[in-house]
């Protein structure tokens, strides 16, 4: 048994190109060809190695971290990442109590976000709002008309969306269609609900890894940290409302022209209930 395990471990070393002796390499290859157990052992190693090296998500260091490293190593003051909780957090909605005082809260965040004065074209919720306006104007149409969550998910999967999208059934709204966009080669999921009165609910969701360090899209730090903590953000405008929240590993931006209180009460609360 021990000898066999040692042999299997040698096959692992072979898969990692760690065996340097040509004779030993030939011997091990011969064994792989002639012994099914050894063939399986070797293939498990090469398969997993290949899947991990090609498929594990890699993060890039945030630009602000790189700047801090350069600053600190060139002698400037060192700063810690972890900030004291900003006062914004006091106003964020906890999922357990999100019915309370939402408008005052969201107005505050709205002002604060607008005060930043610059919006990147890669800002996720700004993209969602622009897409919603295009939907309303008829400039953006669903690429696929769908009636069920399964159809939407299948469309996402076939179109190259490489993360699990959350597509719930939400009475009284009905799923009407879906769109897959491309952001720097990454396929992103969008889908739409409507009701009999012509109200639309548009969901744009991405895996949180795509927002980490602004890999694919950006979201202001205050919003993403609120979402990770289980809060949600609500922004009210004249003609539409935007909700930003987390579901499992996805960050979702929802834009709607329906009554925001109704959407919050029935749609958002249901999403949190299912999470």
């Amino acid at each position: 048994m021990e000898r066999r395990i040692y042999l299997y471990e040698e096959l692992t070393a072979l898969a990692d190109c760690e065996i340097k002796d040509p004779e030993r390499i030939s011997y091990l290859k011969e064994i792989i060809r002639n012994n099914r157990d050894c063939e399986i052992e070797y293939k498990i190693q090469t398969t997993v190695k290949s899947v991990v090296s090609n498929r594990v998500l890699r993060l890039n260091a945030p630009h602000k971290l790189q700047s801090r490293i350069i600053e600190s190593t060139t002698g400037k003051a060192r700063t810690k990442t972890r900030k004291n909780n900003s006062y914004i957090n006091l106003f964020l909605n906890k999922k357990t109590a999100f019915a309370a005082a939402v408008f005052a809260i969201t107005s505050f965040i709205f002002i604060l976000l607008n005060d930043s004065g610059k919006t990147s074209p890669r800002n996720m919720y700004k993209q969602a709002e622009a897409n919603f306006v295009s939907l309303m104007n008829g400039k953006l149409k669903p690429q696929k008309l769908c009636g069920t969550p399964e159809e939407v998910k299948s469309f996402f999967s076939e179109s190259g969306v490489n993360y699990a999208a959350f597509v719930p059934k939400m009475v009284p709204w009905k799923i009407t269609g879906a769109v897959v966009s491309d952001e720097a080669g990454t396929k992103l999921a969008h889908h739409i609900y409507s009701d009999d009165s012509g109200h639309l609910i548009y969901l744009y969701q991405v895996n949180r890894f795509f927002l980490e360090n602004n890999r694919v899209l950006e979201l202001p730090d205050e919003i993403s940290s609120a979402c990770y903590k289980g809060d949600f953000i609500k922004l009210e405008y004249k003609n539409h409302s935007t909700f930003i929240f987390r579901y499992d590993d996805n960050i979702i931006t929802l834009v709607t022209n329906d009554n925001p209180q109704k959407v919050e009460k029935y749609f958002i609360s249901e999403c949190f209930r299912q999470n």
Partner: protein
Amino acid sequence: MNDLYKEFEREALPHVDALYNFAYKMTGDSDDADDLVQETFLKAFRFFDKFEKGTNCKAWLFRIMKNSFINDYRKNTKQPGKVDYDDVQNFYENIKASDVKTEHLEADVYANLMDDDVSKALDSMPEDFRTVIILSDVEGFTYEEIAEFIDCPVGTVRSRLHRARKMLYTKLFDYAKENGFIKE
């Protein structure tokens, strides 16, 4: 800017992404990963005159980060990760060649898995096993470099990597089966 800093910038800074990626996978928290990487670079800069030119700077930085992780981060946050070797042995024993079909052993079978499924499977591994897989298959370190990093003989690296990949295989296989990519 002096020559030492320029050299540090040239040799060490290109590895910031790899260090951050590893730090994030070990801590599971972007703020902690930030702090760990910043701490690593500060220490590396302080001792850069001791770095042996021509050797692997990335491996040197990873060793510094490991010490910071053990000495500072883990001491302040949680107990060292423990591995139940009985569990591992069970995993190991559960895979019998007679149970495995060779068509299940092609990377293509797993092509339909979501990237985050693969990452989740890796994240769910015990820390010792996750570490060797990341260092070997994500960061491309040799056994000798991994051995220095984890303070173990090369033989232990080989053995741990062998078992870790088998454990990960069972997780990936289950994901693929659950999602209907593998039919038995």
